[in-house]
């Protein structure tokens, strides 16, 4: 929806627009509709929260759009809330588009009221009107707009309906300056007025709307109270007000203010929406009951995960083979001309760069893309929260709650997004435990090793057994960490989105975005890794490294000395380890130099022993160098210990 700026219009200053709203209301869909492919995704400075930014040109105006994190409130319980609050207060946004889910108007307006308390210049994008009318809810956008005192635009984010009208309102709103808050009940308003009075006579003048500061002080907000640490008189006076308010209501002050907002949003939502007929929910309810049934629910979960993994292995395997073949042909084709040009360059370029790109695509496209496709289906239908709901009690055994299942599932695709996905946990402790666990889950690259070694030469049951063993180890380590880090575990509080059919187009788009992220992140590292390997091969330093590792490989694990190469290069790229191994021994038939028992031990060690370099980089970013190192050391120790035990057990079993 961008058009070229007419001449002479570019001089006008660009507009900054922020998107704010609850989670799962279609904020990202609107962001994608508006910015298309013009977006950059990074982190908020110093925070582990994603920041997405994009640009569009509308009627000759450059409009910068910032997608704020999805939140329910503007208190300071989570990093996401702090970021949104600070951003709105900074006044950087000329307009704040508040995306509101029409099917849950009352809950969504709770955040709207808080945005208005900060005098944010709000324009409401009323999304999911189609779903609301399917539920028998009729909303009057004009009435809603009058009651809230802000423009309201009906949109359907998925299809892009209403985007032009939305941008019209944004342009109009951007010229008008700050917004105004709505008034609450008389009694609470008198407390707010008293507090504002005290604030006006205070020496300290924070650059925020005075009523907002007053409300936050009455809410006993720690961050705002800190601003007035130097004004003890003010804090004492406010505290007295707060105490009298609490005595009057018999509730803690934050609860009084929250109730006040909810009673206003209830009134506004009630006056602006009407329930035409009782919604027909029986089919959805029945499906939902089935999905969380004590037997059927788990059965469905197992079947869905079974289908997921089978599809990945089956299609991934075929596609991976075809891509490998294609790149093999390409290398053969390039070999002669490049070698005759310059043998050293030819060797490094072919085995380093071309081979690396080939290996990256043969993993990325088949396994990762298939995984993300199926994951997006589970995500968009709303199944993932149902699975988290079913697995909550299991996750409590390892000190986590049901939501932890989602990053764990991600781990079977790639450890990098899985580590980032640990952000959905509420506390640092939970994130750390989960981070230490997800790196132990076999990602697609490790799947290649499991299938390629244990699966091919020992049997598919051996491969499955390794999966089960790995899961058992993950649960055991989780249990152990839970015991070692004794703190009150956090309970589950999670919104359950409605079940709905998925749209293939949206799924494909999501798959593309996620796969693209993987390729951008992994490709340079993979190519660099392949290049180092090719260089090491050329300089003949491999033997030195391999023999240096022999105390572990031969001494402890009883493996052939050459497997050391896999351990070293597995750090750079896990699936490259196999190719290196094949090159070292001069054959792709691993049965020629390893017994079945050795292959099992080798596979187990490769699966557990170290996160790849890309994962390590993300661990540092998410947890800091010290913790990333601790997790890595834990992995190495664990891999050697489990490998050693497996070797002893398999030898005793006479394999």
């Amino acid at each position, binding site marked *: 929806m961008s058009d070229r700026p007419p001449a002479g219009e570019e001089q006008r200053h660009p507009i900054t627009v922020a998107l704010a709203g609850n989670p799962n209301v279609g904020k990202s869909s609107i962001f994608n509709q508006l910015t298309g492919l013009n977006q950059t995704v990074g982190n908020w400075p110093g925070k582990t929260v994603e920041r997405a930014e994009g640009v569009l040109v509308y009627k000759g105006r450059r409009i910068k759009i910032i997608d704020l994190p999805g939140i329910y*409130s503007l208190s300071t319980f989570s990093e996401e809330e702090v970021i949104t609050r600070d951003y709105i207060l900074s006044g950087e946004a000329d307009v704040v588009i508040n995306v509101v889910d029409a099917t*849950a*108007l009352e809950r969504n307006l709770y955040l709207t009221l808080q945005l208005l308390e900060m005098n944010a210049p709000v324009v409401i994008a009323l999304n999911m009107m189609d779903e609301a009318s399917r539920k028998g809810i009729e909303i009057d956008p004009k009435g809603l707009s009058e009651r809230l005192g802000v423009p309201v635009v009906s949109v359907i984010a998925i299809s892009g309906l209403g985007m032009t009208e939305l941008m019209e309102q944004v342009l109009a709103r951007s010229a008008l300056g700050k917004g105004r808050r709505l008034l609450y009940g008389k009694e609470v308003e008198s407390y707010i007025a008293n507090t504002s009075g005290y604030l006006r006579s205070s020496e300290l003048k924070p650059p925020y709307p005075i009523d907002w500061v007053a409300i936050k002080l009455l809410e006993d907000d720690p961050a705002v109270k800190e601003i007035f640490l130097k004004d003890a008189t003010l804090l004492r006076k406010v505290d007295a007000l707060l105490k009298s308010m609490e005595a009057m209501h018999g509730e*803690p002050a934050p609860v009084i203010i929250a109730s006040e907002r909810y009673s206003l949003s*209830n009134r506004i939502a009630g006056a602006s929406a009407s329930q035409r007929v009782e919604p027909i929910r029986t089919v959805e309810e029945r499906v939902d009951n089935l999905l969380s049934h004590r037997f059927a629910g788990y059965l469905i979960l197992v079947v869905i995960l079974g289908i997921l993994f089978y599809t990945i292995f089956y299609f991934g395997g075929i596609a991976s083979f075809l891509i490998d073949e294609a790149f093999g042909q390409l290398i053969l084709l390039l070999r002669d001309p490049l070698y005759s040009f310059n043998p050293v360059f030819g060797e490094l370029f072919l085995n380093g760069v071309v081979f690396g790109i080939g290996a990256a695509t043969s993993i990325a496209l088949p396994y990762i893309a298939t995984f993300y496709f199926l994951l997006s289906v589970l995500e968009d239908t709303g199944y993932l929260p149902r699975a988290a709901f079913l697995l*909550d*009690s299991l996750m409590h055994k390892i000190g986590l709650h049901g939501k932890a299942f989602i990053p764990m599932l991600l781990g079977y695709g790639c450890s990098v997004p899985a580590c980032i996905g640990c952000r959905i946990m509420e506390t640092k402790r939970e994130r750390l435990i989960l981070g230490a666990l997800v790196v132990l889950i076999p990602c697609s690259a490790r799947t290649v090793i499991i299938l390629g070694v244990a699966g091919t030469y020992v049997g598919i049951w051996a491969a499955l057994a390794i999966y089960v063993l790995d899961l058992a180890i993950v649960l055991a380590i989780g249990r152990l960490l839970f015991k070692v880090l004794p703190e009150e575990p956090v309970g*589950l509080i999670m919104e359950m989105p409605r079940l709905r059919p998925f749209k293939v187009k949206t799924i494909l788009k999501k798959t593309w975005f996620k796969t693209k992220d993987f390729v951008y992140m992994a490709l340079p590292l993979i190519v660099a890794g392949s290049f180092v390997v090719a260089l090491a091969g050329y300089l003949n330093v491999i033997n030195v490294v391999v023999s240096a590792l022999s105390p572990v490989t031969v001494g402890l694990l009883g493996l052939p000395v050459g497997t050391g190469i896999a351990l070293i290069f597995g750090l750079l790229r896990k699936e490259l380890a196999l190719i290196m191994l094949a090159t070292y021994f001069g054959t792709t038939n691993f049965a020629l130099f390893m017994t079945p028992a050795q292959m099992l031990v080798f596979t187990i060690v490769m699966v557990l022993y170290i996160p790849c370099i890309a994962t390590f980089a993300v661990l540092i970013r998410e947890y800091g160098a010290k913790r990333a190192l601790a997790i890595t050391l834990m992995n190495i120790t664990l891999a050697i210990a489990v490998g050693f035990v497996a070797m002893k057990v398999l030898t005793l079993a006479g394999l």
Partner: protein
Amino acid sequence: MVEEALETFCRLKTSLGVVKRENLLEAGVDADKLDLLVKNKLLEESKGVLELTSKGEAVLLNHREEFLHDHLLHRGEAKRPPGAMDHWMSCHHIDRATLKEFYDRLKIMPYRIEELVPLLDLSVGRTGEVVLVVGGRGLIGRLCDLGLTPGTAVKMLRRAPAGGPIELEVRSTTIAVGRGIASKVLVRPKIN
């Protein structure tokens, strides 16, 4: 039970304002028990109007604490050592000391304590009204943000198997809440 009679008195006091001897008798408290209450200086009677004495208040509060304690404590998972207690959304069950923090709110609660049940115990399909959340600031705040403020109607939709979480309908949204948290939210079931 002396305490139940006191609870009845409290309920009448909030609904009527002034409680007389005959109101209590109508509400099913028998005359002997009433005399006993007055004799033991739990209630005092002047000009036919009954008032709670400070001793009576103490007995009542103790009863309420006792009740909450029995209903909320030692359920589900085993207690963990206090140590580095993080009330931030903790899902574990509370102890007596934590309950004391809710003293003031218990004092003016306008219901008979026996009317309340933990959200966890609400049967599927039934609706209740949120009365009290016994928990740390973080937990209470999070639940409020999602719409579970006092007085809000919540409907129990389903329970996860194997001691898992529960699913609720609140303000036309659906929310899953862990078992530990659900046992700390006290609701008054609606009669229907």
